[in-house]
């Protein structure tokens, strides 16, 4: 066997062992496992929503005024809204919006925040000061407030809400990553890489980044839930998705007007938010238990 294939074999064996370990830990935490399954289920729902929704035309298209504000029944599982639209179908479609918006926000936030954090921690000095001062300015707003202000001033819409969320979230990752980098930077292997002449960006991305990625992964999965909550809050205030987009928070907002007449209107979208966010939180927690105490192998 050539040298390269022996290396590959050993590498694959190692990776398999680590995977086995993760699965073992994951299986131990049944709640996390269940949450993961539910999330996958939700993703599938989001993808096939147009197929499984009983009244797909209700989302953006026709309106059914004679069936307005009907309580839940066999036909309309969650009842209908003031325009006669099937709430169940709208909630199903809302899954797409929430999951997609949340994923976009988190991914963009990571793409902006993580490299900035790496640079701030690695180069320190002036670059560090500038990046962290800017990040601190953004972080000094209470959560949600900055997103509210940005969304208000950009003009209420779903896209602007997502932009507002990205702008509000990236500093958290920067701060998280920078803290990690600062402590990893002093470790021997970084000095060694430097001494051999590895270019800085390679040190940052190939050596330092993999070592500080775990808390970022945990935070990102928790944020997937948190952003869904914040987006719903923005829409609830009127700053996010606008009618007729079936965003969960917006539906709840609209339901307020008909609160006395149609109790079912706002209940189900809220339940959807709750379950989704709960699962992401459980997943994030489970990931934290799996990824963090690797050192505490005692």
């Amino acid at each position: 066997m050539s040298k390269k294939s022996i290396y590959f074999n050993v590498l694959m064996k190692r990776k398999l062992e680590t995977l086995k370990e993760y699965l073992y830990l994951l299986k131990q935490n049944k709640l996390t496992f269940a949450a993961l399954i539910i999330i996958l289920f939700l993703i599938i729902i989001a993808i096939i929503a147009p197929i499984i929704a009983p009244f797909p035309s209700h989302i953006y298209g026709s309106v059914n005024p004679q069936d307005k504000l009907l309580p839940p029944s066999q036909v309309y599982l969650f009842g209908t809204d003031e325009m006669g639209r099937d709430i169940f179908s709208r909630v199903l479609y809302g899954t797409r919006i929430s999951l997609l918006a949340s994923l976009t926000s988190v991914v963009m936030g990571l793409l902006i925040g993580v490299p900035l954090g790496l640079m701030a921690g690695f180069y320190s000095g002036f670059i560090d000061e500038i990046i962290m001062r800017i990040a601190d300015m953004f972080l000094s707003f209470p959560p949600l407030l900055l997103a509210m202000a940005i969304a208000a001033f950009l003009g209420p819409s779903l896209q602007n809400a997502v932009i507002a969320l990205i702008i509000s979230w990236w500093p958290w990752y920067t701060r998280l990553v920078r803290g990690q980098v600062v402590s990893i930077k002093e470790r021997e292997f970084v000095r060694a890489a430097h001494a051999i002449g590895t270019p800085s960006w390679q040190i940052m991305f190939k050596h330092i980044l993999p070592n500080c990625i775990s808390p970022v992964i945990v935070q990102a999965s928790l944020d997937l839930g948190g952003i869904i909550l914040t987006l719903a809050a923005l829409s609830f205030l009127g700053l996010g998705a606008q009618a007729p987009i079936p965003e969960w928070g917006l539906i709840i907002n609209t339901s307020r007007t008909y609160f006395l007449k149609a109790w079912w209107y706002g209940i189900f979208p809220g339940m959807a938010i709750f379950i989704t966010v709960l699962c992401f939180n459980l997943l994030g927690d489970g990931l934290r238990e799996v990824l963090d105490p690797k050192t505490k192998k005692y």
Partner: protein
Amino acid sequence: MLPFITRRLSLGILTIFGVILITFILVRVVPSDPAAQWVGGRATPQQVAAAREELGLDKPIYVQFERYIRDLLKGNLGYSLMTHQPVIEELKKRFPATLELVFISCIIAILIGLPLGLISAKDKNSWIDHFSRFFSIGAISIPTFWLALVLQLIFFMILGLLPSGGQLSMKIKLFQSVPHITGFVSLDSLITGNFAILKDFLKHLILPAICVGAYTIGLVARMTRSALLEILSEDYIKAARSYGLSERLILYSYALKNSLGPTVTAVTLAMGYALMNTFLVESVFSWPGIGKYIADAVVCLDYPAIMGVTILAACAYILLNLIADIIISLDPRVKL
């Protein structure tokens, strides 16, 4: 100690400046024309131009910024487009109600959340630990505004136990003179010994307080639990056990003292979230605070009002963080 405080204070001021800068940029980003907004929809171009000049919008950017800062320092936050009253007056009127709600909710939340997190960490994997973890993770997953509607549904519409909103019922407002000493209804009624008002106030407070506090309880319980678990796994706890110290002493003396930092951080963060939750909850319960004000302002796109609340809330949060930092610096490990 003093140099630390001054350094931290100057950093805080710098941060506030940054906040003002950001909010100024936001205002300039507004797609609509503030001058046209100000004079209303049916104004003539001359009126709009006159308004623009009056509002100083024709001057170069740095002049505008300078004027903006000067106005802020004078306490001038502009005029609310909704009410045409000075924003600062609107805020002054409504801030006490929000402060009261946030404060009371937070106290209750901390009184519940901290012990919950503590017991959870102490008796890890016991039934109370599982219950508390489940409860706290649920509490931070629930959308606050939805919880508000659900509670209103259950307790007002179905059970008829609690009022649907407001701070005090009409009966009280019309037939009793509500004392106005500190501006805080709870304190005022306590001071004057008017328990009827106090009772009425508390009845109105429960539901909003639960909504504001729910997330807080969950957050505080979780952060306390994880901080304490980490401390309890440290070597010095193991050593203390080997010296024969009781679990009680170890927990309340050793572990707790070490958890000052994370706990204060948790509480500060929780209060920030609580403040934000009031924005969502006040309009549902018609609580007369700045939350309702900003919720209305957002709908009408009353930019000066939005600005004013943003600056106020941000400054309050920065102040809170400053106090938290000073408390944390009391930890002997922290190098000043």
